[in-house]
């Protein structure tokens, strides 16, 4: 960050922690005896607590969605483009909450937390959590914050799916769901990519069955490979061609250890940077939660029946060049909502950036998102 944050940033922010001592029953049949959620908030909660918006993060995200932790931060939170004064999630009007999901590695209870039963890090003993579990854990956070009904629950990618799960599981506790670049469930191709990522991690000799904390090591190479793979799926073919083409760093080395192409250099850099502050066990858990996300599974495989309980209005956004969760997947959600005569708006945004577009300042995206949120804000005034 430069000396002072930009005027449309929430600026310096601090994180909070909520501790829940009552056990949380999980979809896998186990329970967490206690758990902690680390979260950040931006803006002010109004008197009747009606202006709160929950932001859900994606696979590799966390609770730091906007602003800076210190003057020395190079980069702001992950959704800085959309959260701040005058932005779609306008902190002059809304009280924004973002929590790190259970199983995370940025402060919420996760695989590196101490297991009260063993006194050691959970490691492979951390239960496989689901999107429904996350929603249930966040419902308690809402109660703790005095929010009985969110003005909106919003997220992109996995976060969008979490917003959708909120609308299904707690229909009376949100007025709008903002579901961006999401899908009703993963395709075989999506699951395939996740499985390759997991295999990369688990086949790293430093993995030690997930108990690598005990050995003072981490499966960094495996996690970096997983991230490199993931990163390819977040970009479009066109975006990669425009960014790197077949540009060489120098001349061809005729050596496997050397970096020949710019795209290799970029992916290696992304992988190396990622492993500095991300935990491999969390990556396993998050990809599994994505794979298991399937609201229809609890409604006889009928997605239309799954969305029937929804009472909120839904905004669906997709991006034309996103092939990880393509516009066609958002249309599946749209159709199910239309079948049930639910209030819904849907816009496919023209964008070249692929899945990552939901993090980017694309004018039509921000305009559409802002316009929708204007109306959400107007409802607050009654």
């Amino acid at each position, binding site marked *: 960050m430069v000396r002072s944050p930009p005027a449309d940033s929430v600026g310096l922010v601090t994180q909070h922690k909520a501790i829940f001592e009552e056990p949380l029953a999980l979809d896998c049949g186990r329970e967490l005896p206690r758990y902690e959620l680390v979260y950040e908030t931006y803006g002010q909660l109004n008197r009747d607590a009606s202006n709160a918006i929950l932001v859900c993060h994606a696979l590799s995200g966390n609770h730091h969605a906007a602003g800076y932790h210190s003057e020395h931060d190079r980069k702001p939170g992950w959704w800085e483009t959309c959260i701040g004064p005058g932005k779609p999630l306008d902190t002059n009007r809304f009280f924004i909450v973002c929590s790190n999901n259970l199983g995370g590695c940025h402060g919420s209870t996760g695989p590196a937390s101490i297991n009260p039963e063993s006194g050691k890090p959970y490691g492979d003993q951390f239960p496989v959590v689901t999107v429904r579990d996350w929603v249930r854990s966040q419902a308690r956070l809402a109660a703790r914050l005095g929010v009985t009904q969110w003005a909106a629950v919003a997220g992109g990618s996995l976060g969008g799916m979490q917003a959708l799960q909120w609308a299904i599981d707690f229909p009376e506790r949100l007025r709008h769901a903002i579901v961006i670049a999401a899908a009703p469930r993963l395709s075989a191709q999506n699951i395939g990519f996740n499985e390759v990522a997991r295999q990369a991690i688990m086949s790293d000799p430093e993995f030690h069955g997930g108990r690598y904390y005990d050995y003072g090591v981490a499966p960094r190479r495996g996690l970096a490979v997983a991230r490199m793979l993931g990163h390819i799926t977040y970009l479009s073919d066109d975006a990669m061609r425009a960014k790197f083409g077949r540009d060489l760093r120098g001349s061809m080395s005729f050596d496997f250890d050397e970096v020949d192409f710019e795209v290799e250099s970029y992916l290696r850099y992304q992988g190396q940077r990622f492993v500095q502050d991300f935990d491999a066990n969390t990556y396993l858990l998050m990809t599994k939660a994505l794979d298991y996300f399937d609201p229809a599974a609890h409604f006889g495989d009928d997605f239309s029946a799954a969305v029937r309980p929804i009472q909120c209005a839904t905004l669906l956004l997709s991006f034309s060049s996103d092939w990880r969760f393509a516009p066609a997947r958002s249309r599946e959600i749209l159709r199910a909502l*239309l*079948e049930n005569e639910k209030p819904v*708006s849907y816009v496919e945004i023209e964008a070249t950036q692929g899945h990552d577009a939901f993090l980017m300042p694309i004018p*039509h995206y921000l*305009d559409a998102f802002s316009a929708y949120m204007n*109306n959400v804000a107007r409802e607050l005034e009654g």
Partner: protein
Amino acid sequence: MNPLRRELEIVADWIEPGSRVLDLGCGDGTLLQYLVQRKGVIAYGLEIDPRKVTRCMDRGVNVVRADLDEGLADFHRDSFDHVIMSQTIQAVRYPDKLLEDLLRVGRNGIVTFPNIGYWRLRTQLLFRGRMPRGPSLPNAWYNSPNIHLCTIRDFERLCASMGIEILERRTLDRAHRANPLLNIAPNLLAEVAIYRFVRGAQSL
């Protein structure tokens, strides 16, 4: 609330409270917002222009960005009580196919269009030898979105050939008033035509 164009008032009068409405080419959502506020309808709009889509969302109107030339595949048969096309049919690529699709997803159709048979437009072609332009047709031939203009007689012929039963026709004059004199020769005197129709007994 902006005062509705007379045309939209007529359309709104045909909509029963609480009904399900789809507006094809809903523009900035003026009509749908009016219908939701006054009639409590369940309403969705389809619109291709991103800026108009954004206006709809700002108003709280349900809107889907869509290209009508790709049909209405997102909607099941009989999903709506009314499907409206206000000043839209002349701008789509396949008006006949869209009409068919319209009456698949809706029980009632409502269509409004600029009547190219209107005498002022006819005289432009006849005496000046130029493609007609007017308040309802502001663009030049080369940049007009209106690629399938028709007369009142043309539209009624198409409906007859498709087995569509017209329930009611209303016409407006140049000042967008409902003038009883227009009924003498609507195809010559009316600038705007407004129809309400259903699937015919033996059609579709």
